[in-house]
C-alpha cells in the first residue's frame, strides 16, 4: 500500500509561483499604480474577505455535533469500563462483599443511560436545525451528520445491551450452578442478591429477571415481615420502583426505535455513495428542466398575447374612428 507525498514539492512550487508573481507585479507597476492600485483594489478584497468570513462561520448546530461527539467518546469509555467491571465481578469467587463494585456499576449504568438520552437530544437538535436550513448543501450536510451520529449511537447502544445481557446470563447460570451445591442457603443467598438489585434503579439488568423472580421473592419477603403497615409501605415503594423501571425502559425503547428508523437503510442502494451523487445530479437536472418549462410558459403567455392583440385592435379602431368621423 505504497503512497507518495508530494506536499513538499507542491509548497515549494507554490511559494515560487507567488514570489515570481510579486516580482513581476513590482516591476510592472508605475508609481501611481503601486500606490493607488492596491488601495483601490483593497476595498474589494476586504469586502470579499468579509463575505468569506460570513460564509466561513460554521452553522449553529456544529456545537450540538461536537457535543454529541464528545458524549459518544465518553460513552465508549464508560461502556468499556462497565464490561471490565462485569468481567471482574464474574471472575470473583462469591457475591458476598459486593458493595463497592456494585455501587460503581450501578453508577455507571445510570450515567450511561443519561448519556444516551442526552446524546439523543443533541441529535434531535441537529435534526431540527437541518429542517430549518435553507441552502441545500447545508441541509444535506446536517442530514448526513444526523445519520452518522445516530448510527454511532445505535452501535454503542447495541454494544451496551449485549454486554449487559451477557453479564446477566452469566450471573444467572452461575447462580444455577451454585444452587445445586447450596440448596439450603438458597433463600438467604437470594435475599442478598435481590436486595442489592432492588437498591439500584438500573432498569437494564434486573427488569426481565425481576418479572420472573418477583412473585417468589415477594413471597419470601412477605413471610418475614408481619407488620401489615410495613407491608403496605413496602408494596407502595415497590410499585413506585416498578413504575420507574417501566418508564425508563419505554423511554429508551422509544429512543432506540427512533434511531433504528433513522439508520435503517444500511446495505441498500440508498447507502451507495455513487447512487446518492447521481441522485443529486438527477435532481439538479430535473430542476433545470422545470425551470425551462416555466420559462417557456412565461414566454408563451396567452393572456399577454391576448391583451396585446386587443390593444392593437383598439388603437386601430380608434384611429379609424377618428379618421372616418372627421
Amino acid at each position: 500500500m505504497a503512497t507518495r507525498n508530494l506536499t513538499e514539492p507542491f509548497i515549494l512550487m507554490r511559494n515560487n509561483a507567488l514570489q515570481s508573481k510579486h516580482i513581476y507585479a513590482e516591476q510592472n507597476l508605475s508609481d501611481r499604480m503601486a500606490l493607488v492600485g492596491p488601495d483601490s483594489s483593497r476595498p474589494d478584497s476586504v469586502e470579499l474577505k468579509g463575505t468569506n468570513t460570513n460564509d466561513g462561520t460554521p452553522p449553529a448546530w456544529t456545537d450540538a455535533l461536537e457535543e454529541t461527539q464528545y458524549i459518544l467518546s465518553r460513552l465508549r469509555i464508560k461502556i468499556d469500563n462497565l464490561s471490565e467491571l462485569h468481567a471482574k465481578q464474574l471472575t470473583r469467587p462469591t457475591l458476598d462483599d459486593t458493595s463497592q463494585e456494585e455501587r460503581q456499576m450501578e453508577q455507571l449504568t445510570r450515567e450511561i443511560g443519561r448519556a444516551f438520552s442526552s446524546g439523543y437530544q443533541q441529535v434531535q437538535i441537529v435534526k431540527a436545525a437541518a429542517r430549518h436550513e435553507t441552502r441545500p448543501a447545508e441541509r444535506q450536510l446536517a442530514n448526513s451528520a444526523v445519520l452518522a451520529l445516530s448510527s454511532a449511537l445505535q452501535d454503542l447502544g447495541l454494544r451496551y445491551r449485549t454486554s449487559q445481557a451477557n453479564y446477566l446470563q452469566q450471573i444467572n447460570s452461575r447462580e444455577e450452578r451454585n444452587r445445586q451445591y447450596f440448596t439450603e442457603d438458597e433463600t438467604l443467598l437470594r435475599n442478598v442478591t435481590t436486595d442489592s438489585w432492588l437498591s439500584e434503579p438500573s432498569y437494564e439488568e434486573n427488569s426481565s429477571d425481576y418479572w420472573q423472580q418477583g412473585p417468589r421473592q415477594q413471597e419470601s419477603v412477605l413471610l418475614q415481615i408481619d407488620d401489615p403497615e410495613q407491608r403496605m409501605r413496602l408494596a407502595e415503594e415497590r410499585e413506585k420502583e416498578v413504575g420507574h423501571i417501566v418508564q425508563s425502559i419505554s423511554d429508551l425503547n422509544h429512543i432506540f426505535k427512533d434511531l433504528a428508523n433513522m439508520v435503517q437503510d444500511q446495505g441498500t442502494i440508498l447507502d451507495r455513495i455513487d447512487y446518492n451523487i447521481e441522485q443529486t445530479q438527477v435532481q439538479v437536472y430535473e430542476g433545470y428542466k422545470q425551470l425551462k418549462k416555466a420559462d417557456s410558459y412565461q414566454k408563451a403567455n396567452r393572456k399577454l398575447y391576448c391583451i396585446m392583440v386587443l390593444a392593437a385592435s383598439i388603437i386601430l379602431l380608434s384611429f379609424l374612428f377618428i379618421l372616418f368621423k372627421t
Partner: protein
Amino acid sequence: MNVVTALKFYITKMTEESGPGMKVLLMDKQTTSIVSLAYSQSEILLKEVYLFERIDATVRSDGLKHLKCIVFIRPTKENVALLCNELRYPKYGVYYIYFSNIIAKADIKLLAESDEQEVVREVHEFYADYLAVSPHLFALGISACSQGLTWNPTHLHRTVQGITSVLLSLKKYPYIRYQHSSEMAKRLAEKIREVLGKESNSFNFRQESNPILLILDRRDDPITPLLNQWTYQAMVHELLTINNNRVDLSNVKGISKELKEVVLSGEHDEFYANNLYLNFGEIGQTIKELMEEFQRKAKKHQKVESIADMKNFVETYPMFKKMSGTVSKHVTVVGELSSLVGQYDLLKVSELEQELSCQSEHSAQLQKIKRLLNNPRIRDIDATRLVMLYALHYVKHTNNDITGLLDMLKKRGVPEKYTKLIHNVLEYSGVHTRQSNLFDREAVAKITKKLFKGLSGVDNIYTQHTPLLVETLEDLIKEKLSTQVFPYLGNMIMSRRPHDIIVFMIGGTTYEESLAVHNLNKQNPGTKIILGGTTIHNFESFAEEVQHATTGTAPRYRTRNN
C-alpha cells in the same frame, strides 16, 4: 494480497489524515465508483465525511468555508484543469488533494500556480486506481478496449495506469510474463515495464514473495464469456448485469420502489458473501433457509407484550431490519433469475452450450442446435450464442454448416447486430492463426482426464466447462508453463515457485474465471492469485467488445464461407 483491503486502507487514510472536523469528498466519475465499491455511505459518514461532490458536475453547490475538502481524483488533464479552477476560487476552507495515480510534475506546477490563496494543505499520490470487485478480483471499467485488433491508445494508457496502481497498492515489483501470440499483451507488458523503470523509486519494496504479472488476451479464450452461467454471482451478471456491484431491477414487473436497484456486495452483505459462488440449486436451498429463519424471527417480533419482550425487540430491531432488507433483496433477485430461466428455456440452451464447449460430436450437436433454433422460446441472443460456439468449434471441420445456421438465424428474425457476430467472433479469436485448437487443447492430458471423468460420471452437466485460465494458472503454479508460449519480458527468469500471481486479462475477464481463481486460491494455500481485467463480461458486453475489436479489419470469413 487483497485488493479490497488495499483500497479501504487508502480511503481510511485519506479521511483520517485531515484530522477531526466535517469533511466533504470531491471526486471524479471514476473515483466515485472506486470509493463506492470499497465503502458504503454509512461507513464513510462515521469518518465525518458528510458531503459528496463530483468535480465535473455542471452545477456545484455554493461554498461552505467551514468544511475540509478531500479531493480524490485521477490525474487526467481535465481533472487537473477543473481542480485549478476550483483552487482559484475555493469553495471550501482547506484542501487535501489525493491523486489516484502517478502525476506529472508539470501538472503539480499548474496546481501550485493556481493555489493563490494557499488553501492546499497536503498533496499525495494514493494508488487506488482500479475497481476492487472482490478480494481477488479487480477491473478497470473499460469496455471495448481494442479497435481493429490493436490497442485503442487511450485505453492502453488507462490499462497501464490501472495495473501499475494495482502493483503499487499491493507493493509488488513483479516479473512480467505475457502471452506470446498476442501483440496487445506484448505492448502492454512493455509499457508497464517502461513505467516500472521510470518510477523505480516508488517500486522499491522488499521482495520475498516472487510476484509475477501474467498478461493474457481474451482472444485466446472467447468461449468462456459466451456461456450461460449457473453460479449466483455469474448468473446475476449474465441475466441481469452487475454494474459496480449494483443490479438494476427496474424492468422487472411489479417491483417495489426500494428494490428498483439493489446492491450485491460481499463487503456489506453477509448472505451474499457466503453464497456468491454457490450454484443455482444450492442458492434456492439457502434462500429457503434464510426465509425460514426470517419467518421465525418475524413471528417473535409480532408479540410485544411484556417489558422483557420490549427489551428484546429493541435489542434485535436493527438486526431484524437489516435482515428483512437482505431477505427481500435476495428473494427478488433469485425469483427473477428463476423466472428468466424458465421463460427462455435456459436449461436446454446451457446443456447444449456445455456440450459444444467440451465434446466433439458434430452431427448430433448440429441437429440439436437446429432443433433449438426452431424453438420460439429461445432468446435471440441465446440462439446467437449457440451458433457462435458452433462456429468457433467447427470452423475447421470439413463439412461444417455455419452458413446454414446463419440462414436459420436470419429466418428467425435475429437482428443483424447479432448475426454479424458469428463472423466477428471468428475473426476475433483468430482461429486461423491459432496453433492449438481451443477445444482439444493438450490432447493427451485431455484424454486421460476424460477417461477419469467417464469413470466418475459428469457431476453437473451445466458446469462441465472449465476456463482456459485454470489450466494456464495450474501450469504456472507448478512451474510448467512453457516459456515459449508465455515468455518473460526481458531476460530475467524466475527460478523459484511464484507465490503471488497477478493475472490480467486484456479484453475483459468473467465471473466464471473469478470463481475459478477463488477455487485455485483455496486449493493452493501457498500461492495467492489476483485476477484482473479491462472489464467483467457477460454476453452482451462481450458482444460489444468483439464488435469493436473487429471493426476495421478485413472480413476474411465472410467470403470463404458464403
